[in-house]
C-alpha cells in the first residue's frame, strides 16, 4: 500500500538493525521504554524485536489509554449504561475492560444499550438523532484524544444539545512519566516518546527527562521503521554520552505542539487534583475533568454513580508490568487465569496492552530467542 509500505521496508530495517547493533557496547544491557501503547502494538505486530540485538530490551510502558482506567471508573460507566433510556458510547476496546463486576460488553448482553464509536462526534450524532434518549460518551485517552472530546463538547454547547454528556477519564502524559522516573525500582536507559500525544503537546514537556534524570527521549512515529530509527537515535545519544529530547516524528509532530488544540483543551477541561491510575495508584494533577463552563455536559454531575474505588485484583501485577519492573510472563496469572478472553488486568484487554501484545504476538518469538540464548 502506498505511503505505508515505504515505512515497512525490510531492507532498510536490516540496515538500521546493523547500525543499532554496532552502537551497543559489549557487555552492556540496554532497557528502553516505549511509553505509548500504539508503539507496543507496532513492535509486536511487525516483530521489531527480531531486528534488535539481545542486549537491547524494550520495556512496555503505561501509555495504553484503556489499560490505565481503574475498575471503579468502569463500574461507574456500567451503572450509567444500565439506566433506562441511556445510550452509552465508548471506543471499541473499552468495552471489554473488566470492572468490579463484569464489563460493558456484559452490561450490553444484559440489555444495556452500549455502542462503540470511532469518534465522540459519532456519539454526538447519536444524541442528535435520538432526542428522547440520554447519550453518554465514556471519554478515555491522553492528550491525543482529548481535543476531539473537547471539540465535540464545544459543538454540543453551540448546538444546545442537552441530551448528551461525557464521563471524562482523559489523562495527561507527563505526570505518570514523572511518577515512573521517581519510582526507585525502575532502571531505564532511555524513552521512546509518544507520537500521537506529542502532535498535541509537542516535545518541550519531555525536557525534564534528560535534564533531571539524564535520559534520552526520542519522539517516534508508529510505523516499524520509525521505531527502529528512534531506537537508533537513542543508542546514538547513549554512545555519544548525550541526553536530549529529539524528534524522529517531525513529519507530524511540531516541536511546540498544536497550539490550537492546547487552547481548546484549556477552555473545555481543567486539571483534577488527583486521579487513580490502574496499577500506578493515585497521581496528582494527572487527569482532566470538564471545566465549569461545560458542567451541564458533565455526566458525573448529571447522573448518580457509585464512585466506589475498587482495589486491583490481588493476583494482578499490572502495575509492575506498566512500570517495566516485571515482564508480562513474570506475572503470576499471565496466560493462565488472565488471558485475552478472560482478562483480569487491563494490560490483557486492549491489544495495545503490554500483556495482550506479548500473549498474541510476542510469546513464541521471545521463547525461541531465550531458548537459543
Amino acid at each position, binding site marked *: *500500500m502506498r505511503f505505508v*509500505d515505504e515505512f*515497512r*521496508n*525490510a531492507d532498510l*530495517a*536490516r540496515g538500521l538493525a546493523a547500525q543499532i547493533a554496532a552502537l551497543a557496547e559489549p557487555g552492556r544491557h540496554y532497557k528502553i521504554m516505549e511509553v505509548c*501503547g*500504539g508503539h507496543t*502494538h507496532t513492535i*509486536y*505486530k*511487525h*516483530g*521489531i*524485536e*527480531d*531486528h534488535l540485538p539481545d542486549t537491547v530490551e524494550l520495556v512496555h510502558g503505561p501509555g495504553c*489509554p*484503556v489499560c490505565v482506567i481503574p475498575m471503579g471508573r468502569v463500574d461507574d460507566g456500567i451503572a450509567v449504561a444500565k439506566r433506562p433510556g441511556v445510550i452509552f458510547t465508548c*471506543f*471499541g*476496546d*473499552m*468495552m*471489554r475492560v473488566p470492572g468490579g463486576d463484569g464489563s460493558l*460488553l*456484559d452490561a*450490553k*448482553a444484559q440489555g444495556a444499550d452500549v455502542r*462503540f464509536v*470511532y469518534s465522540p462526534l*459519532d456519539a454526538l450524532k447519536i444524541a442528535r438523532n435520538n432526542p428522547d434518549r440520554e447519550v453518554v460518551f465514556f471519554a*478515555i*485517552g491522553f492528550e*491525543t*484524544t482529548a481535543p476531539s472530546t473537547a471539540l465535540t463538547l464545544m459543538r454540543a454547547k453551540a448546538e444546545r444539545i442537552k441530551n448528551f454528556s461525557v464521563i471524562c477519564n482523559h489523562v495527561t502524559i507527563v505526570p505518570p512519566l514523572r511518577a515512573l522516573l521517581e519510582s526507585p525500582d525502575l532502571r531505564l536507559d532511555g524513552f521512546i516518546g509518544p507520537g*500521537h500525544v506529542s502532535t498535541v503537546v509537542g516535545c518541550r514537556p519531555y525536557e525534564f527527562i534528560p535534564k533531571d534524570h539524564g535520559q534520552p527521549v526520542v519522539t517516534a512515529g508508529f510505523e*516499524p521503521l520509525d521505531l527502529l530509527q528512534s531506537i537508533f537515535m537513542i543508542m546514538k545519544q547513549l554512545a555519544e554520552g548525550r541526553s536530549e529530547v529529539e524528534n524522529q516524528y517531525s513529519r507530524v509532530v511540531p516541536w511546540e505542539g498544536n497550539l490550537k488544540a492546547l487552547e481548546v483543551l484549556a477552555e473545555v477541561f481543567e486539571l483534577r487534583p488527583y486521579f487513580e491510575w490502574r496499577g500506578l495508584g493515585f497521581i496528582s494533577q494527572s487527569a482532566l475533568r470538564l471545566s465549569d463552563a461545560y458542567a451541564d455536559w458533565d455526566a458525573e454531575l448529571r447522573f448518580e454513580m457509585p464512585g466506589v474505588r475498587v482495589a486491583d485484583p490481588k493476583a494482578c501485577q499490572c502495575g509492575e508490568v506498566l512500570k517495566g519492573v516485571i515482564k508480562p*510472563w*513474570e506475572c503470576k496469572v*499471565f*496466560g*493462565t487465569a488472565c488471558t*485475552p*478472553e478472560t482478562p483480569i488486568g487491563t494490560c490483557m484487554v*486492549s*491489544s*495495545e496492552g503490554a500483556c495482550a501484545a506479548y*500473549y*498474541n*504476538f*510476542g*510469546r*513464541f*518469538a521471545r*521463547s525461541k530467542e*531465550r*531458548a537459543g*540464548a
Partner: protein
Amino acid sequence: MAGLEQEVLARIERQRKLRPRWRDERITMAHGAGGKATHTLVSGLFEPAFANPQLAELADAAALDVDGARLAFTTDGFVVKPLVFPGGSIGELAVNGTVNDLAMIGARPLALTAAFVLEEGLDGDVLRAEVQAMATAAAAAGVTVVAGDTKVVERTKADGMYIVTSGIGVRDQRAELGVTQIRPGDRILCSGTVGDHGTAIMLARGELELDADIRSDTAALWPLVDALLGAAGAGLRVMRDPTRGGVATVLNEIARDADVGIVLQEEAVPVSPAVEGASEILGIDVMTVANEGKLLAIVDPAVADGALAALQELPLGEHAAVIGEVADEPQGMVLVKTAFGGTRIMDMLIGDPLPRIC
C-alpha cells in the same frame, strides 16, 4: 531466567490445548463472532451433549455413509444486517454459505432446505427479492431447494428476516480429506483476496462514514473444489472456508486439530488495496475478517504448483496464492513472518473484532 520463561510458556501451551469448558453466565455477541468464544461454546457445550463421531470432527459438514453412499450434510443460519449489501444479499449468502460448507469436505452439493423467520411488517418486495436471489444462487450452484418452513415473529423480534438452510451433498471419490492427512511441508493455498465480505458489511452498515468500493465476495466454491480435486487428487489434505473469524481462526483450528505448526508469509496473502486501506484505517486485522467466497486448501508440496495453477485458471481463483506451509513446530500455533522481517503469533479472533483506539 530463560528456564522460567520457558516453563511459563509451556504451561500456557498446555492450557491452550485442554478442551474448553463452557461456563459463561450468558450469551454475548462474542459467542457468535466465530472466534474463541464460539469455539468454547461449541466444544464445551454442544459437542459433549450431542457426542458422536461425525460431530466430533467439527468440520464444516458431517460425513455420513449410508448404504454405500458417501453423503455430506450440514446446516447454517443467516442473520446478516443489512439484508442487502454491495456484492450480495442475505438470500445469496444463505445458498452459498451452505453449499460451501458441503464443498469444504469435498462434497458436490445436491439439495437444500430453507427455513424463513420473518418479522411482522417485512416489506413484501424485500422478501420477493431475497427469494429470487436464492433461486438464482441455487441455479448457479447447481442445487435445488427441495423443502422449507416459514415462521413469522412479532415486530422488533427479528431484523427483517433470518434464513436457515440445510444442505446435502455427495462426497467426491478423488480424495479422502481430513486433518490427520496433514504433513509438515504441506503448502497452504488461499483462493483469493481475503477480508472482502466482512469489510463490505462493516462499511454497508453506514456507521463508519467511510466509503470505498468494496464488495462482498459471496460465491459458490464447488467449481474451485472440483478443480483442486482434479489437479491435486489424493494430495489434497483439507479445505476450509474462512468465514466468521477469518483466516486467522481457521488456520488456528487446523494447527490445533492436526497438532502441527503453520507458518504464513504475510506478504503472500492476497488482500485488495481497498480492503487493506480500510482495515488499516479502522484498526482491524484483515486476517480475522470474514470471507464468503474464499477457501484455504492444504496440499502435498508435490502437487502444490499444479493445484495453484488449476485455481488461477478459474475466475474465482484468479488471485490464488501459496501463503504458507505446515511445519513440525510450534505445534498448535500459527506464526506469521512479517513483511518487515519479524515474526509474530497469529491467534484466533477473540470476541468481536473491536477496533483499537489509537
